[in-house]
């Protein structure tokens, strides 16, 4: 299905948010949002994706 990941259109096989992180090679310690709403780590496996979803994966950054 087609989603937008961090502002970029992507074709992915995953059908839930946890699967998407695995597919795209993100490690666990990131923050995620689906269509601009925050999704805590514990709810990612249950969060199904649909065509056109906008997903944001935000890694903590330490640079200042």
């Amino acid at each position, binding site marked *: 299905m087609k989603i937008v990941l*961090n*502002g970029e259109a992507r074709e992915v096989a995953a059908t839930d948010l946890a699967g998407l992180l695995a597919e795209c090679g993100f*490690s666990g*310690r990131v*923050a995620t*949002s689906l269509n*601009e*709403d*925050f999704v*805590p*780590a*514990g709810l990612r496996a249950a969060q199904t994706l649909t065509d056109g979803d906008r997903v*944001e994966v*935000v*890694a*903590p*950054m*330490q*640079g*200042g």
Partner: protein
Amino acid sequence: MLLVFAMVAGLWGIGMAMGAPKSARWTMIAVLYVAVLGVQLAFPPEHQLVVATGGSLAMWLMIGAALAVVLGYSTMLQKLRLKADAKVQDEAQESAAQELFSETELNRYARHIVLRELGGLGQKKLKDAKVLVVGAGGLGSPVLLYLAASGVGTIAVVDDDVVDNSNLQRQVIHKDEAIGTPKVLSAAEAMTAQNPFVTVVPYPRRLTEEDAAEIIGDYDLVLDGTDNFETRYLVNEVCVAQGKPLISGALSQWEGQLSVFDPASGTPCYQCIFPEAPAPGIAPSCSEAGVVGPLPGVVGTMMAAEAIKVITGAGAALRGEMMIYDALWGETRKIGLKPRSDCPTCGGKNT
């Protein structure tokens, strides 16, 4: 005579029913009045029309004059009252500004004072504010310069680093000649040189578990632009414990993020969003990954703008939202944030 008054009442009623403005109704009545005067002049006193409309030019002239005096007087009163109200409001703003500021300061902050959302009262809030900035590096540079320029009264800065040649590609508060001096001293000098009306409190050290609570306790607002996760989690913990808003910014390479963490007003805290620091070596520091020079300028300046809103209450600060700025593609994105009930720091009190 009664006939004329009946016609006046009629005109007023019809005008009202048709929704005509008061001025239009008064115009109709004025036309009627002139017509009545005309009748008194044009016809002999015994004429039917003259008798029906009161029979005396002099009397109508007197009524007209009396009305004109009453109307003129009441409009004048109304205008005076409006003027007085506006003056009282302006004076409240102005006196707030004048009590606290010298002529030079009033002139310096004039572009703030004319902003409806800030005004003299907002500028007074800025002057009364005590703000702590953690980190005098890339983000700290614009944060400190803009807070000082904006007239934030007391600005503390904590950092244990000294200025290094490799900092100067982005840390614009420090000058080449400051290489080797503590960043907080170099920053303080630049700030007071820019605006001698602010007080700068330098802490040349790293915040530790032991002294963080005491230092943060002296300030009402904290801005975090530090370069390491330990300090970020520590600052968050103390701010949550003390109910202080925390404006947090971070960046890597081409991308930056910022948010206002303020659980006291219903938002998540830093740890709600990032439960754990990445394993060491996973999230690179600026020296390892690189960072484009203007990026901390953009993100730090946004942090300073958030600080002005948090202090003055203008607009809406980034509470419960994270702004992501991607310099490489010229994009900004915003995501909503929610407290997490299993957050060890704030306990998701607001979930």
